[in-house]
């Protein structure tokens, strides 16, 4: 059941309900970034909860503490990746990918009996790195504001009589209401007291 049907319980009878979904403001790179953010959380939890199993699978016994630290790093990267500042999170993920590849390189040594597993993991991380790079540059391109692109709106005064002639023009038929005065009430009392 679509989520919009579930949330319908919070609406009244006459409120419009979604019949058919249309095009979204989310772009492809935005959706990819979001998926990578959730992937980061999943991987991070796995690394925190089962570092021993991961270490044994990859032949990295003794590196459980490092894997757990990487789990923390994954979750820390996921937070900005899932936020509106996704490029910060994606940059952090790309840095993390480099660390992962460096660590997996240790497991690719010839005397590691789990070398094949490490090779598969390395291939997966390379793939994820490519997705991270695609999402990073994709979101940057979709959401960037070109430097020096500001248009000149200096002909848009909104004051048809000109800025200088408009100064105080509202005063001819408008006074700040009494309940909006901030200064007057105090200032009026001062001269009498001073006298």
């Amino acid at each position, binding site marked *: 059941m679509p989520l919009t049907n579930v949330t319908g319980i919070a609406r009244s009878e*006459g409120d*419009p309900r979604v019949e058919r979904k249309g095009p979204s403001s989310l772009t492809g790179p935005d959706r990819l970034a979001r998926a990578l953010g959730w992937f980061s959380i999943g991987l991070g939890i796995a690394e925190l909860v089962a570092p021993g199993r991961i270490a044994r699978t990859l032949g990295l016994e003794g590196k459980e503490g490092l894997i757990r630290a990487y789990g923390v790093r994954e979750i820390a990267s996921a937070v900005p990746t899932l936020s509106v500042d996704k490029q910060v999170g994606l940059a952090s993920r790309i840095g993390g990918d480099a660390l992962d590849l460096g660590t997996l390189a240790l497991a690719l040594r010839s005397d590691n009996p789990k070398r094949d597993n490490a090779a598969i993991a390395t291939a997966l991380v390379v793939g994820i790195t490519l997705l991270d790079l695609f999402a990073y540059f994709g979101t940057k391109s979709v959401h960037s504001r070109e430097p020096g692109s500001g248009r000149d709106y200096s002909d848009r005064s909104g004051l048809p009589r000109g800025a200088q002639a*408009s100064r105080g023009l509202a005063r001819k038929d408008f006074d700040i209401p009494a309940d909006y005065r901030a200064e007057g009430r105090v200032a009026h009392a001062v001269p009498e007291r001073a006298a």
Partner: protein
Amino acid sequence: MKALVWHGKEDVRYDTVTDPSIENPRDAIIKVTSCAICGSDLHLFHNLIPAMLPGDILGHESMGEVVEVGSDAKGSLKVGDRVVIPFTIQCGECEQCRKGNFSVCRRTNRKAELADKAFGHHTAGLFGYTHLTGGYPGGQAEYLRVPFADTTHIKVPDGIEDEKLLFLSDILPTGWQAAVQADIQPGDTVAVWGCGPVGQMTIRSAILLGAEQVIAIDHLPERLSMAEAAGAITINFEEESVIARLNELTGGEGPHKCIDAVGAEAHVSMGQPDTILDRAKQMLLAENDRPHVLREMIYACRVAGVISIIGVYTGLVDKVPMGQAMNKGLTFRMAQAHVPRWTDDLLRMIEDGRIDPSFVITHKVDLSAGPEMYRTFRDKSDSCIKVMLRP
């Protein structure tokens, strides 16, 4: 009908939805002729304001033609009337409405119990906003049901184009109230932080109220150029120190009146290191807003000056220097705009040519381009300042 619908963070879609219908005798339905994306819609777009639900129709700046009127609204509205719809829904009868505090109407928030828990005491119902303000479907749509329609409308004359009238719904009275609640007096120096649409309206309002010197603070060249067009002195905070420049322009005393037209999402940059910490806290849900402007205003403001807050804040803020504020004897005024309190005055000023709010529109597109325009407006690309949508 077609509408712009919130589906989650950064996910606004151009959906097909069922038509709204009259629910209450005080309701009316309008056919929307023009609507706009507001800066506060971006807080929803970023999911910073809690209690949004997938399927919520966005939009609180709209105008159109009345096509259906409930039995109890017929005394003040008829089919064919041309109306601008204020973003606040007001009953016109409660204690706060009678005082002119329409944005805290006691009766129009249909989810008052929920809002009481969040705010202590609920505020008015708002269109196209969070369920804390009633969860009323918004006006970025082909049709809009207006609850309490007999009191929630501004009748506008034919012969003036939508572009000049649409912003009576929000940003013009909001900018006006920012200036009024600062109690601007002739001779004042007024500093306005933020040159987005509300900041631009605030600058014009300050000029019209007689401010001697208006100083506009932002970092985007197109926004600063639009502020200069109204006679403001500009400060680009990425190129110069705001505090030093304000002191230079005020003989070292600071502005009499400081106005925050930024609110929850202050620009994050290395030049404003507090914003980086705020952003990190926001991501960890340890703080709701980035109150850089509030901190800077309190520091910059002249002693016994006035701080006017019109930029939307959403919840908890950290490291606000209350010691400075208290010892300097500052006065704080803040509120969501009490729209109908100001619209008679503002409509008169539009009609007699004292202000033309259409200056702020930089993008005019079909409603179907809404999702893309949310992105463009948020990214501040293509020099976008204000998007007007035509259903």
